[in-house]
């Protein structure tokens, strides 16, 4: 069957959607997928704002679906913000709405979603999602949706892939900012305690900390002993080097109570379908707690002055690095190949040296954390970086 759109005739129609929150490189995924689909003679459409363009087309005077024509994607700036927009929530099983009686309720619109896709002649969906979205797409796939997922993560915490797109950009920006903070700490003769993203895994803190040769790096995987951190800083901060740099992942734990102060379990937070507000709000509101807790704790143990800083939300924006741009483009084009080969219920994964398709079941319910025997940890120790306790 072919489908007539304007002067063009398409053999197949597939769609792409983007989950909640901006990650640098989204446009590159869209571009890669649209070009690859076009070369197969398929029409690619983008769903606006998560699933909203499909579930609530009435909200979009210009239509909830955007045809990603070769002309459009040829002019798409891979460094610009996401073309399709984002919705704060992308769970069709729990769509919050105000009903005809003006009462707030959550309804399951997964059946409508599948019907709408069918009505639009869309027979496969590429979803650019993070860890939370993978579970939703897994559930939709089990309900009959032909889904292929592209992993996106600032924290690089999605299991079954060595790298998610977005991480390299965040890492590069974090390193740049840490360099600047160190200069500020140097001139102020203080100890900077900088919180970076990483609620569940410490890749960003560890790799950035290595790059700038931080004095201390605290990650969620290693509950830290503040007394030991203070002792190490006491040794490193001298009259000849009167400053210090401590990098703290936002999910870092203190060893005394085994959990971050005032925070719920981060894994539960990441899996919550019924949070009373928007996921993006959650992250921004919570930022700063780890840096503040560590800076305040250290202040009581050492003579030097500490000051907390938070990089958190700023790292999420900006243009993708060259690495993320090519990875995202490759993931987009690869996802179309997965659709062509009928490899549904899968996620694109970078398994060096290749890009592969792994079953979604292998990617959900896991977090890619820094293993205890990671070479990165050994490298950090070799550079004299203290990781929160004696290892």
């Amino acid at each position, binding site marked *: 069957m072919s489908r007539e759109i304007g002067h063009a005739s398409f053999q197949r129609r597939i769609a792409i959607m983007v989950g909640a929150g901006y990650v640098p490189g989204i446009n590159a995924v869209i571009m890669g997928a649209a070009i690859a689909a076009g070369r197969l003679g398929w029409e690619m459409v983008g769903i606006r704002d998560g699933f909203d363009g499909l579930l609530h087309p009435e909200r979009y005077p210009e239509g909830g679906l955007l045809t990603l024509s070769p002309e459009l994607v040829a002019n798409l700036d891979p460094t610009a913000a996401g073309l399709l927009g984002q919705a704060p929530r992308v769970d069709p099983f729990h769509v919050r709405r105000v009903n005809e009686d003006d*009462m707030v309720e959550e309804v399951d619109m997964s059946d409508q979603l599948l019907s709408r896709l069918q009505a639009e002649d869309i027979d496969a969906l590429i979803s650019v999602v993070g860890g939370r979205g993978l579970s939703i797409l897994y559930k939709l796939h089990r309900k009959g949706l032909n889904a292929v997922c592209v992993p996106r993560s600032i924290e690089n915490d999605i299991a079954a892939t060595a790298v998610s797109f977005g991480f390299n950009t965040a890492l590069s920006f974090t390193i740049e900012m840490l360099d600047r903070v160190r200069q500020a700490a140097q001139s102020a003769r203080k100890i900077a305690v900088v919180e970076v993203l990483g609620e569940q895994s410490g890749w960003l803190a560890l790799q950035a900390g290595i790059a700038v040769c931080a004095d201390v790096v605290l990650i969620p995987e290693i509950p830290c002993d503040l007394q030991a951190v203070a002792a190490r800083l006491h040794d490193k901060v001298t009259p000849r080097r009167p400053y210090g740099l401590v990098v703290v992942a936002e999910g870092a734990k203190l060893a005394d109570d085994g959990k971050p102060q005032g925070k719920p379990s981060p894994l*539960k937070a990441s899996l919550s379908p019924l949070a009373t507000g928007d996921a993006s709000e959650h992250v921004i509101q919570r930022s700063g707690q780890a840096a503040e807790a560590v800076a305040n704790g250290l202040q009581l143990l050492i003579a030097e002055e500490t000051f907390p800083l938070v990089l958190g939300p700023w790292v999420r924006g900006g243009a993708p690095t060259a690495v993320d741009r090519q990875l995202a483009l490759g993931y987009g084009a690869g996802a179309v190949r997965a659709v062509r080969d009928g490899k549904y219920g899968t996620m694109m994964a970078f398994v060096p040296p290749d890009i592969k398709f792994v079953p979604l079941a292998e990617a959900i319910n896991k977090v890619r954390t820094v293993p205890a025997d990671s070479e990165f940890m050994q490298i950090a120790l070799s550079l004299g970086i203290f990781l929160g306790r004696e290892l």
Partner: protein
Amino acid sequence: MKDQPIDPSGRNGTVLNIQRYCSHDGPGIRTTVFLKGCSLRCKWCGNPESIRKKPELSYDPRKCTGKKACGLCLKSPFPEGAFYVAEGDDDKVKVNWHLAMDCDEALASLCPTGALEMFGKQMTVDEVLDEVEKDSSFYRSSGGGITLSGGECLLQPDFSAALLAGAHQRGFNTAIETAGNVPWSFVEKVLPHVDTVLHDHKMTIPERHKKWVGVDNRRILENFKKAYETFPDADFIARTPLIPGINADEEHIRAVLAFIRPHKNVIDYELLPYHRFGLLKYELLGEVYQLDDYKTPSDEVVKHLQAIIDEAFGRSGQQAANVK
């Protein structure tokens, strides 16, 4: 308006909890019946387990004995992927709430340790009232009775009306706690059986109300005004959950006073300083609490706002202290 006869037989509703010996939910010592289901989504909600209409799963990891000792929920008939044990973590089961949300009471009951439980169950009017009746001697001595709360008790209008009418038949004083965001027909059905209506004025500006609560307050205010006028024999007590940075300001308090003071059956206006007692319940439901960074209001702020209310109600000095 007098009670209309209601036949309570066969009526049932979804009850979250029945709490005895309550002293802040109306006059005297009371038993508060919390009903499931709410039509608002207040970001500060202290009872997240009451929001959904249906009974829902909760998970308490402290009660879980882990995969080695049990591991029942990791296998069929539990949904695939809904429960798991994380690599390199402790042995305790974790929940993928996206996949576990649809578990029902039959599945939850298979958990031998009680780590999995349901919030809410179906009860008949008689079952609830028999439970409430256990403290009838306290009601008589203190002027107390039954209070329906939630969630939003008006979302189950037939059940609520039957409960309250039945309570009156048994000689109990009746009260409800409501936020008022329901069709008027629901209000009209329940209020003839209510002695005291504790009702929320959460925010004044409609757009801000929508931002923090989910819908604007126009219909709510219409309902309250109409209720004051339609049910002159009922006592109304206005309430505001006081949250610094959101509504703990003089402007809001004065706006509420301007709204309620023309109505003589609004006998008081209470401030409910924001608390964070609901945090654990969010964890049991796998949810994220959105107001984690908000603090409880200071005593000075509460006293200042309370003084404005006391002045509006013509109370001063010892008189005001007695009311509190």
